[in-house]
């Protein structure tokens, strides 16, 4: 854990491990589709060495992707402080976003079909700036709605004008 991205005096709340599972599933699906396409190419007469080496590359990329996804999911975290929400993400390209509750314009909770199957949702905080990238994916559904209600409440009580 890196001190540079730690919130002062508070511990990070990690997102649900279901986020990593969900992304791993997507990765496996992608690898399976790619390998299947290569096998079909092999059947259709692409030289054996060519498609076999392509399959090897795809499998290696899949393994590397597996590790990266696991690492990246571990870096998604957030912390609720008195006046600001801290959101951290990115294992390679690290980002820490500090959003004062008073600057919040609205909160989105989004859950696609796959996310629903894994019982997670993402919360997106919007300010008047389009540059604010305060999104927390992979929150357990109950935690997502709790966070949304809490943020809305804090946003109203601390609201500051533009």
């Amino acid at each position: 854990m890196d001190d540079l991205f730690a919130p002062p005096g508070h511990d990070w709340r990690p997102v649900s491990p279901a986020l990593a599972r969900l992304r791993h599933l997507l990765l496996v699906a992608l690898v399976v589709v790619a390998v299947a396409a290569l096998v079909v190419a092999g059947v259709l007469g692409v030289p054996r060495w060519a498609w076999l080496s392509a399959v090897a590359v795809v499998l290696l990329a899949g393994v590397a992707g597996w590790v990266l996804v696991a690492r990246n999911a571990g870096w998604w975290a957030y912390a609720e402080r008195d006046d600001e929400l801290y959101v951290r993400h990115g294992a390679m390209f690290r980002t820490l976003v500090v959003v004062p509750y008073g600057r919040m314009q609205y909160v989105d909770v989004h859950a696609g079909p796959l996310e629903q199957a894994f019982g997670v949702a993402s919360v997106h905080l919007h300010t008047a700036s389009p540059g604010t990238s305060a999104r927390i994916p992979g929150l357990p559904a109950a935690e997502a709605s709790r966070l949304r209600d809490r943020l809305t409440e804090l946003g109203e009580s601390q609201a500051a004008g533009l």
Partner: protein
Amino acid sequence: MTVPDPAPEPGQSPGRSYHRLSPLTPLVRSAILVVAVAVSSWDDLLRGAPGPIGIVALALLVVGAVVGTASWLRTKYWIEADELRVDTGLVSRQSRRIRVDRIQGIDVVQPFVARLLGLAELRMDVAGGGAREGSLAFLRLSEAEALREKLLSRRDAVRAGESGSGPDAVAQQGSPHRVVARLDLRTLVVSLVLSPTTVGFLVSSAALGGLFLAMGGIGGFAGAVPLVIGWGITQFRRLSAFYDFTVTTTGDPGAGNGAGTGGRPDTGQDTVPGVHVRRGLFERSAQTVALERVQGVVVTEPWMWSPMGWARLDVSVAGQAHGGQGGNEPSLSTVMPVAPRAEVLDLARLLLSVSSRSGSADLRDVRLTRPPTRARWVAPVRRRFLAVGVGEHLVVSAQGVLGRRTHAVPHERVQSLQLHQRPWQRFLGLADVGVDSPPGPVAVRARHRDAEEARRLLEQLSEATRRARLSGS
């Protein structure tokens, strides 16, 4: 143009006097059509025997004139109980009511043809967003300005009545426009000649000339003609957009810091202290920047201007769509296209005075520091031009190799903060801090700072913005 209503329609209070738009309105609206007809059937008209195209065009013109006149007859506006009502519609009637206290700002615009006839359009910014819903076109210029003043004073009176700081706001309304800065023609012309466009033009014509010389044909210089024309048109467009650029201010922005803004709970609205920008040669436009909605400023100093020490000032205003980003494009965000640096900084201080709630919102008071030397591994050239500093009321950053761009945002206007570290920055122990602002030209960035320092900067800014927000609301 006040006419007593001859036959009050149902739903309209009897005896109410209304106003009409200028009777020349249909003419201005169809000016393009008139020109098109004249051009397309010029030969026929000269011969005195209009061809089939000419007849169709003339018929269109007649129909247009009839519709235009009828629509002008049906368009009425009047002020009624804190509302501006505009009734329009030829076939289906439409009645728009604009509540005066919802008006954010009013611009008086004069398109070219309207200007020739001494007419103007009144555009009202209603509520948030960039959409201009309320527009009255066309009125006589004096009428438009009188109506603008009337609506604004009515609005201020209504708002003051709500928040209970009446005398203050009304007194400020009466204060005349004070000219803060005026752009003289000579400076404008010199600045246009010394612009990136000119450099690009010179470089490309030199390249073209060299190419033709190498190929052995002097006549090849004819190829530069389109370049000259293109350059001329671009620069002339800017000249006409920025011609007679005048910045005035109403109310005392100094007085606006304390009682004026403190009494108004809805800080999202603009208040009396404002800066007005008038510009244009063919198309005069007047635009108001409400100081309370200023989100930050950018001071640009292109290297060609450095011998004269000139700079340009752009501003980010909440809810205002901005025009061309960067470059020299005539843009809505430009508050001063070119002026001596000291004058630009004074204007910047005026623009930031309300949102930073203090008189010391001066860019010159903020000490900027450069990133550490090891940042040269990621930004060998740019490093020398990067700088950032946190003042009592402002956060300021500078960048730009071919012209220094200094961005400044008051702590009170910071939306959110970001800390970034890319893998190669982590290797060098560097990090970036970004300040998020609403859409506009302003973007304060601390690039390639020492990681520890970046983290401290984030804490410091988050503390400063928290304090500014609490004291502001």
